[in-house]
């Protein structure tokens, strides 16, 4: 870093404020940016959406934001969602665009880990798994295992992925905008079910309060710098598996520093689409995602689920 860079980063840091990485506190206003594109969304086009979203979310140039958030020495985990195969998993175009920006910010390719629960899931979704070497890393928890100590917190008691606990210093959460047959929707918070060894135990009562409880764990809260919800192709019914008849090309990325506000916004988008298609609301379907409201309650304080405290900006 030369003197010019140093000054630039110092000034940017001061301008963005020391709170850039501070977890959102419920009660303050949260911003959710919906960056919508049109036409074919290749990696270049997705990158444009991403930069636009970042700039509106942080109020600064995208390049500067990436450099402020990430830099040399960081090991950044990109938590994708790959259970539904190629049809309804985090798009490679989005992951590619994020990885490029991280590299531009000074993160070494080998310090970027694209991860999910299992190698097989990643491969099914079209990712090339790779561990070692100087290129992007891409592997499942089954490759490195779970941290051996049982971590017990609120209603959750689980083993956690070593990738999350031991390897990553920061995480970008990259879930998919989709319906879920038990929990109502599976968005940002629920994506961390892919980091524990026993997600099957926490779907009772539509995931409430387990999903909220899980996300209060410090290493999830503190390491997750950003959540980018992949809504390029979204699904309003029949999830989590890919059901093409219930998808629509929403063509958007949703970004927020407040994962609860982001999930609430995603939930409302799915409700709106369901209403348009003549489907019952998630409450009527018996799977209202109340865990999102729980995450905002005084016990959890993970973010905002009150629409009056969420500023949704379409760009």
């Amino acid at each position: 870093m030369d003197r010019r860079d140093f000054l630039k980063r110092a000034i940017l840091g001061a301008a963005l404020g020391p709170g850039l990485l501070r977890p959102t506190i419920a009660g303050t206003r949260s911003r959710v940016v919906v960056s919508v594109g049109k036409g074919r969304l290749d990696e270049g086009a997705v990158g444009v959406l991403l930069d636009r979203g970042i700039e509106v979310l942080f109020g600064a140039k995208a390049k500067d934001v990436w450099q402020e958030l990430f830099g040399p020495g960081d090991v950044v985990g990109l938590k994708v969602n790959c259970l539904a195969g190629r049809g309804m998993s985090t798009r490679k175009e989005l992951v590619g665009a994020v990885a490029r920006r991280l590299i531009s910010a000074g993160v070494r390719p080998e310090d970027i880990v694209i991860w999910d629960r299992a190698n097989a899931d990643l491969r099914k979704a079209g990712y090339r798994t790779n561990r070692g070497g100087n290129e992007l890393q891409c592997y499942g928890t089954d490759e490195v295992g779970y941290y051996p100590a049982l971590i017990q917190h609120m209603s959750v008691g689980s083993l956690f992925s070593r990738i999350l606990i031991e390897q990553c210093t920061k995480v970008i959460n990259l879930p998919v905008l989709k319906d879920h047959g038990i929990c109502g929707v599976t968005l940002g918070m629920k994506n961390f079910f892919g980091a524990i060894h026993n997600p099957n135990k926490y779907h009772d009562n539509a995931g409430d309060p387990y999903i909220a409880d899980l996300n209060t764990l410090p290493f999830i809260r503190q390491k997750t710098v950003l959540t980018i919800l992949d809504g390029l192709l979204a699904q309003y019914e029949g999830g989590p598996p890919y059901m093409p008849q219930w998808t629509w090309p929403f063509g958007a990325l949703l970004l927020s520093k407040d994962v609860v506000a982001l999930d609430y916004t995603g939930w409302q988008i799915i409700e709106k689409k369901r209403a348009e298609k003549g489907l019952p609301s998630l409450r009527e379907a018996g799977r209202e995602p109340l865990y999102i409201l729980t995450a905002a309650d005084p016990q959890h304080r993970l973010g905002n689920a009150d629409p009056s405290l969420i500023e949704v900006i379409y760009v």
Partner: protein
Amino acid sequence: MLWTRRSFVKVTLSASAATFLPCLVRSYFPRFPREDDPTDESLTEARHYEKLPYKKIRCVLCPRECVVDDQERGYCGVRENRGGKYYTLVYGKPCTWHVDPIEKKPLFHFLPGTKAFSISTVGCNVECHFCQNWQISQIRPEQSTDYIASPLEIARAAYYTGCESIAYTYAEPVIFYEYMYDCAVEGHRRGVRSVMISNGYINPEPMRQLCDVLDAVKIDFKAYTERFYSNVCHGHLRPVLDTLVLLKEIGIWFEMVYLVIPTLNDSPDEIRSMCRWIIEELGPDVPLHFTRFFPQYKLRNLPPTPVKTLERAWKIAKGEGLNFVYIGNVPGHKAESTYCPSCGRRLIYRIGYMTEVEGLRDGRCVYCGREIPGVWK
């Protein structure tokens, strides 16, 4: 007898075989191969499920009746929907096996002093916060490097290790139902019986079918309150009560274990109510084992059960009229032994897993002749 070279060789070989074969049998040690890749799932179609529209299924094996989407798994984590067909991922893949005394299960009225070839796969259909085997019961198949052993190989291993029975135990056998069933069938072909050590959280029809191939069942009865079942085990009480009544109706031998956990299920009122229910619905001859809790898994904030609490439970159960009440996990306690309910003499003496049948012959007390219920031969 006129010795010829042929007859000499024949007799010599026979004598050698008679001498050394039992040694070979005694030294038999099953060697099941380990799977190479835990993610390489063996697939056997599940037996109790219904197909639903859009490739969904409903599992009807246990009372959860999970509705499972394509590519998803049920609560147990060992059954997966693949394109609208439901599969068990643990068939033929035990994660552990041991030769145990039958008293370890515990089954006290079933072939005392014999060995049980004990197996388990990973997975469970409840999540008890006090689970002592959570490292296998609360994980998924890909998180364990399992053995590979067909039902035939399990039955053979049980036979050659001198076990009278195969025990399906440690985690929860309901979730490896198909494997258990087929092992029991193979075992019976070799004269080896089968016992299921279960939480009883199973639907009536699968249980009924299973009883055709089982010889005894032990039910871990967690508590006599719905609150305990839902808060501490993530299950429900009613289906377990129904299973117990069904076992009684079928007539298969079964025993009950009640792990007494301080402050959670040890109130005298609860224990008294449970004993009354047992006497009314199951009869006074069902063996009931009060066992000692030790802090485990998610329940580490409570102390081990005081022996006095167990003794209080024992007194309540005896006072209510149960004939065979035991105290477990307290080696050397006199309530480990079996006494005749009529004459009070000791019939089976136990210290830990050491067993001596003292006063029982042909299923009767040798002192007073009272019939002692159980499976004795």
